[in-house]
């Protein structure tokens, strides 16, 4: 698997899958960004890469469909899989762990590393900002994402707009912060 440096978003998931699901991905680090990682797959230097579904849809769909198709999705991080032709029959990592009878620690590790994908591009304000202003900002974001013009532009760009509310993001952050210390220690070990 082509990857950016250790500890990066393209390195952590395969490393964690190896530790929890028993996959045997060999991660080759050092590629300069997503484009170089995709090129390495296209020219058959490596056999795979780890990326977001958003990236696949916007710049790499030709790798999964059409005459130049060279890839298929193996595992999706998280507990759910979107309804899309590319993802038909693809297991979600957390569900797969349950099916394989993996322990609580493995599941906790998978959840902790997936949290960053669930809150991609979070918007935050400094501590101490009054609650009424936080609420006003949250509602403004919700209104903006409901704007038909914005949704049309996103659709044209093949971008998935599925924002989470401020409350949902707070919950995910709290979940992440309450990750047991032994799980964090194991994560550190896995990605080093």
């Amino acid at each position: 698997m082509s990857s950016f440096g250790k500890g990066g978003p393209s390195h952590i998931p395969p490393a964690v899958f190896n530790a929890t699901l028993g996959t045997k991905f060999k991660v080759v680090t050092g590629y300069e960004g997503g484009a170089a990682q995709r090129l390495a797959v296209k020219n058959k230097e490596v056999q795979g890469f780890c990326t977001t579904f958003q990236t696949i849809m916007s710049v790499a769909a030709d790798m999964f469909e059409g005459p130049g198709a060279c890839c298929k999705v193996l595992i999706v991080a998280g507990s759910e899989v979107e309804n899309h032709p590319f993802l038909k029959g693809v297991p979600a990592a957390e569900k797969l762990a349950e099916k394989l009878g993996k322990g609580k620690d493995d599941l906790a590790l998978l959840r902790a590393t997936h949290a960053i994908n669930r809150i991609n591009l979070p918007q935050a304000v400094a501590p101490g900002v009054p609650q009424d202003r936080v609420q006003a900002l949250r509602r403004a974001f919700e209104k903006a994402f409901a704007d038909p013009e914005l949704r049309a532009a996103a659709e044209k760009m093949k971008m998935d707009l599925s924002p989470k509310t401020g409350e949902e993001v707070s919950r995910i952050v709290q979940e992440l912060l309450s990750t047991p210390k032994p799980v964090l220690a194991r994560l550190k070990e896995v990605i080093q």
Partner: protein
Amino acid sequence: MLEAFLSGLLDVFAYPTFLLMLLGIAAGFVVGILPGIGSPGAMAIMLPFIFAMKPLEAFAFLLGMYAVTATTGDITSILFGVPGEVVSAATIIDGHPMAKHGEAGRALGAALMSSLVGAVIGAFTLAAAIPIVTPLVLSFKSPEFLALGLLGIAFLAVLSGESKLKGVLAGGMGLVLAMVGLDPQENIERYTFGLVGLWEGVGLVAALVGLFAIPEIVDLWVKGTGIAETQVGKLGGVWQGIKDTFIHLGITLRCSMIGTFFGLVPGVSGALSQWVAYGHAVQSASDKSRFGKGDVRGVLGPGAANNSGIGAAMIPTIAFGVPGSATTAILLGAFIIQGLQPGPKMLTEKLSLIFSMVWLIVVSNIITVMVCLIFLNQLAKITHIRGALLIPALLTLVFLGGYADTNSYLALAITLSFGVVGLVMVHQGWPRPPMVLGLVLGPLIERNLFISYEVYRFGFLLRPIVVVIIVIALAVLFLPNIQEMVIRRSALKEKAVVASEE
């Protein structure tokens, strides 16, 4: 295909496409002249404006700007020794000494005309390469990128001028400085002294501006004269520079091909191709004595290579969605905004749009060169202005450029530090280009060396393209010495024959 080629040309002149291209050119002119504010930054600023445009209009706007930045970037390199763009740094080596000798007009004429020739060759290569682009680009993997880096290293000696040892040491220092930042494999901090601003390494723009511009400004201050030390009348004119491009057409064409090749290969930047082109111009010349002191061939080589890479760099972006540089990465963003999916299909289904892009690059460069030619003689007169009046403006340019590299005060400190290093190097007769080459090549070599070993072990050394490139690198290194030996031996033989006849 011919139909798409011609309709692509006609589409460029349609309203409002042409007007938007002119707007882009105007923006690119300013961006190119201002050091530090490179085309990636300017394009990122322009990106929001294209949401309301149709695809061709958007690309006219963006490519108009992109196509001319390298051309106008040469202007400040020649006039002031301040690289307007990273890809314009090699132009300084001979361009600025020419300006000092009162030949600014000639150097500018040569830079602009070679840029135009390079841009046209690169753009038409983009058009011609469409059928063969896939196997060509895909044949380059990490070992081949590593070999290209080593080829660059082979040019260190060529760029060292008369003091080869100092040049190689300066190159080594550049390689060491390139290690500053997070290492590409383990993401471990190296020589960052706890400064987050150094995680991305030493900013190339800040380093270049400091290394080249500050010593020139100090020199100007000490001399107390204008940049031009002598007047050479008509010889220094723009027209002579244009004629030089065609007198040395071989260099211009070969360096255009070098730029095109480096543009075509994703991951090898234009920052490298200009130095390889310069090295080639030096090495292919029979009389090398004027290089570094103001040889017009040293301007033609990088000038042609800079611009020829623009069209070629579009190929991996369009065909594979793999941008080869920061600027093409932003262009990829423009594709997405316009709802276009990069990939092999683009080369068949959107052929007319691709050819319009080719024509946009060509037409933008023709317009820029024509406009510049009108003002070049006036621009060249700047070199006769008293230094005391120029220095404040130059210092502003230098520190603006340095700051704009990463928008931080740390970048200013880097500029200043490299300025001091540059001053010492000039004073002690150490060549500066090898250090820049080391800085450019360091990340390329390190990254690809580790990946190559990880994937292929030592087998990477036996890959056919790697072997060919290494043979070329060895030829670059040793051919001049072999030629010298042969000449010396034949001279000795002749002497011996004459002596025996006597």
